[in-house]
């Protein structure tokens, strides 16, 4: 794979500045009179633009995260043509209940009670409803933990592969994934938050991280 030349990157940035940054020919011109439609468009953009921190995630991490989420969806769907639904709460009587849609704000920070040795926090993002932390180590292993206060139920009635479920301390963890990545989803008993944990770390380690999340 061609490793990009730092010298070439720097030269390109400098060339851009020398070619395009000089706008003195326009400085004395009057302010443009924009159409009402254009001004409405700009106002809409101003309200909707997002500083998407996912953009700064490494390409590898993005691919793994997307693959993990797709693997979860594929695992619970098999080849069923019916609409797929995932029940996150099993009340133990053989029937599955939807989790009610919840809209709320994050009032408590995401806190990890256990982080595997060698892993460091590399990225963090927080808003009113969701907090995301990314950890990685020097061996290109990584995991992403996500805590959100607003969510809708996802319910499943699947054929084929069914995700694994394990119950620990009264909390159900749904585990799925492929050879290269694992996704764990759970809602603690107080149902205030939905957690999603994904990464290319060993499944047992991911589960240990999940159990110790606060």
């Amino acid at each position, binding site marked *: 794979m*061609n*490793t*990009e*030349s*730092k*010298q*070439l*990157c*720097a*030269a*390109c*940035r*400098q*060339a*851009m*500045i*020398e*070619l*395009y*940054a000089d*706008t003195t*020919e*326009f*400085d004395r*011109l009057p*302010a*443009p009179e*924009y*159409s009402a439609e*254009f001004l409405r*468009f*700009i106002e809409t*953009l*101003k*309200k*909707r*633009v*997002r*500083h*998407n*921190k*996912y*953009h*700064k995630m490494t390409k590898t991490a993005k691919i793994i*995260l*997307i693959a993990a*989420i797709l693997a979860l*969806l594929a695992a619970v769907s098999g080849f069923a043509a019916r609409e797929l639904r995932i029940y996150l709460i099993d009340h133990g009587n053989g029937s599955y209940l939807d989790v009610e849609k919840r809209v709320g704000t994050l009032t408590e920070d995401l806190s990890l009670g256990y982080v595997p040795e060698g892993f460091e926090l590399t990225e963090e*993002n927080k*808003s*009113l*409803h*969701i907090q*995301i932390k990314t950890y990685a180590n020097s061996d290109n292993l990584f995991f992403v933990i*996500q805590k*959100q206060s*607003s969510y809708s139920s996802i319910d499943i009635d699947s054929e084929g592969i069914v995700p694994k479920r394990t119950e620990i301390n009264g909390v159900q963890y749904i585990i799925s994934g492929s050879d290269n990545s694992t996704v764990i989803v759970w809602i603690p008993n107080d149902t205030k938050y939905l957690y*999603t944990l994904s990464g290319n770390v060993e499944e047992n380690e991911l589960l240990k991280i999940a159990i110790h999340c606060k």
Partner: protein
Amino acid sequence: MLGFYLSIVDTEEGKQKFTAVYNLWNRPMYYAALKVTGDTGLAQDALQEAFLYIAKNVAKIDDPASDETKAYLMLTVSSQAKKIMSRQREIINSDLVEASEELVVEDFIFEMFEQEDLTQKIKALPEEYRTPLLLHYGQGFSGREIARMLDMKEPAVRKRIERAKRLLSQLLDETAD
């Protein structure tokens, strides 16, 4: 599902950055577009397209007031203006059909040259090759993103970048001789 998660990552930083960029640079951008299109309506269309790309990629902007940001904005709006004019003239952006002898130019060869020398040679490249090169190496856009911005196919973008690098290395060799 990923889109749902991304849609609720919502900070004020992006909005403030975009607003600053718009307030600082909309005027020169408009006139740069007008210079290309010669029509106020088309210039606004180009400006609209440019700000849409900028809004989608606001995370790439570090300092709204820097020369680097200004250069990126002016390049973006110029590209959009030219794209609109191409559509107006119904010019089809033909994919470069080049002989299969094209070899990838390894980037490490550029490490041997002085940055100033590289900069001047990059400026001398034909615009059709220079623009994708600048967007990729100068701003970090992927081939796919550049293809969307310039209304080209992704393989054509990659070919233009490789062609730009080949021309660049030829220009540098000529100077060295």
